[in-house]
C-alpha cells in the first residue's frame, strides 16, 4: 500500500544528480561519492577495483534501505582521485573489451 513506484529505484528525481562528491572534513585526503539510484551491481565492482589500487587506503560502500537513502561510496585516496578514476575507466573498459573479443572467438553468440 505504501510501496513506492518501482521506477523510483532507478530513475533520478528532478533535483538529484547522478554523482555527488563531498570532501570529508575529519580525515585528510578522504571524500564521499554519492551515487544516486544505483545498486550493488556497480557499487561493489567499484569498491573492489578501488581496493586494488595501492594508492587507496580505504574504500567502502553503504547501500541503505531504498526507502531511506541512496548509495554512498566512501573512498580515501592519496594524491589525485581523478587519476585514479581514469585508471578505473581504462581498466574496466579494457577488461570488458578483452572479454568481448574472447566472446567472439569462442562463439558465445548463436
Amino acid at each position, binding site marked *: 500500500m505504501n510501496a513506492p513506484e518501482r521506477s523510483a529505484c532507478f530513475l533520478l528525481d528532478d533535483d538529484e544528480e547522478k554523482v555527488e562528491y563531498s*570532501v570529508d572534513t575529519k580525515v585528510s585526503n578522504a571524500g564521499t561519492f554519492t551515487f544516486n539510484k544505483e545498486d550493488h551491481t556497480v557499487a561493489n565492482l567499484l569498491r573492489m577495483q578501488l581496493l586494488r589500487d595501492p594508492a587507496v587506503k580505504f574504500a567502502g560502500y553503504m547501500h541503505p534501505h531504498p526507502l531511506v537513502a541512496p548509495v554512498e561510496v566512501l573512498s580515501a585516496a592519496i594524491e589525485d582521485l581523478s587519476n585514479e578514476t581514469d585508471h578505473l575507466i581504462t581498466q574496466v573498459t579494457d577488461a570488458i573489451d578483452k572479454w568481448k573479443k574472447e566472446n567472439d572467438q569462442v562463439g558465445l553468440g*548463436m
Partner: protein
Amino acid sequence: ADTSPSTFLAALRSDLRIRVLSRPDPRTLVFELVGVDASFANALRRIMIAEIPTVALEYIYMWNNTGLIHDEVLSHRLGLVPLNVDPRLFDEYGLDVDENGEAAATDRNTVVFRLNVACGRNEREDERLERKMEERWRNEGLVRGLDPKKANKGGEQEEGSGSSKKKKSKNKKNKKGKAKNEEGAKEEDEEEVEEEDEEALEPSVMGLSIADKAASHAAVHAASNANVGTTIAIDEPSRPFTKHIYTHHLLWCPQGDQLERFPLHNDDATTTTTTTTTSIGGIRPIHEDILLAKLRPGQVIELEAHARKGTGKDHAKFSPVATASYRLMPQIEITRPIYDDDAEELVNWFEPGVFSLLPIPSDAEGEDAGHRVKAAVSNPYACTMSRNFMRHPVLKERIKMSRIPNHFIFEVESVGMMAPGVIVAEALKVLKEKCERVVGLADESLAAMMGGV
C-alpha cells in the same frame, strides 16, 4: 604484491579465460569465466537478470471484458507473456518527445496487439464465429498466431469440420468483435445464429440433442486422445461450453513499417528466429499456447495492448533470462590416500564421475602396497558440494572440500527472445556503459569540487 593499475591489467589479460562448456538446449548456455573477481561475476549476473531491456506488453486498453477474469488480473497475465521480438531492434519509449513534452508512441518504440474474443453457445457456433471474422481481419492486416495443437494435428478438427480452412490460417480469425460494438449488428448476428442452430438441431427435445452431441464429442475425444482440443477440457454432457483463450488468439497489428521490418512468412517456409521456430514470422509471442483466460457462452474480451521496452529492474516481465546463475568451481583435495572399499564407497557417495578408481599395480611400494585401488579426483566440475562424505568416519578425515574463488561456472537460460550468448554479450556492453558513465560522472563531480576549492 604490486597491484598498480597496469600490473592489474596485465595480470588480468594473462589469467582471464572464458570458455563455453555446453549448450543443453538452444536456450541454455553454460560457460566458465576464470580469473575475475566475484564482484565482476555478480555484476554480470545482476545485469543479465535486471538491466537488459526487453519488449513486453505494458499498456492495456480494456474496451470490453465480461469474462470472469478481472481486468487487472488479465492485464497482469498479458504483461507476463514473453514476446518474440529482438529488443535491440526497438527504441526506448520516451526518447521521442513532441512539443508538449509528451512522449510519442511510434512504430519504432511500440508494438500493438489486440485481443478480440467472444464465446459462442457451443463449439459449433464458436467455430462459426471465428470463421466469420476471418475475412475482416485478413483485410485489416492483423496477424493471428497458429494454434500449436491444431498445427500439430495437421488442422484436424474434433468434429472434422473446417480442417482445410485451419491449415491456411495465417492472418485470420477474430471472434465477433466488431459485431459487439454496435447494438444493431449484434441483434442481427444473434438472430442469424439462432436460425442456423435451430436447423441443425434435431426436431426432438433440445436436451436430447445436446446429449447426443456430447456423446459424439466423447467418442471423438476418445479417438483423438493425444491431442486434447483447445476448447473442451472436461467431457460431461451437462457442462457448458468453455472457450479457452490462448496467446495465439492475440492479434498483432503491424504499425508503420513494422511489416517490412518483421516480415511474415509463407506456410511452406519455416524460419528459425533466435531460438524459436515460427512458421508465421512477424511479431508473435514466443509460446502460442499460454492460457490467458477462459470464457463461457456470451462472454467477450476486447482489448488493445501496447508493448514497450523496459528492464527487469522495473518489472520482472522484462527480464530476458528465465534465470542466470553462477556457481564457483569446487575444489576437492584428498589429504591422505583412500583405498579399496573406502574408495569404492567414495565413488558412489559423490556425483558420478567426480572420483575415479585408479588400480594399483601389484609391484607398488610404500603406502600403496597391498591395496587394490586408489581414489583420485577426476572431474570436480560435476560435484554439487553435497558433503555427503562427512558422514563417513574415514572419508571425512581424508577429504577437504573448498571452492576456487575466481573460477565461475555460469548457467544462462534465455526466455527466448534473444539467444543466451547474445544476452551475455549485451550484459557486458551494459556493464561497460555503466562503468564509463558512473566513473566519468564521478570524475566530473570531483573536478567541479576541486575547481571550486
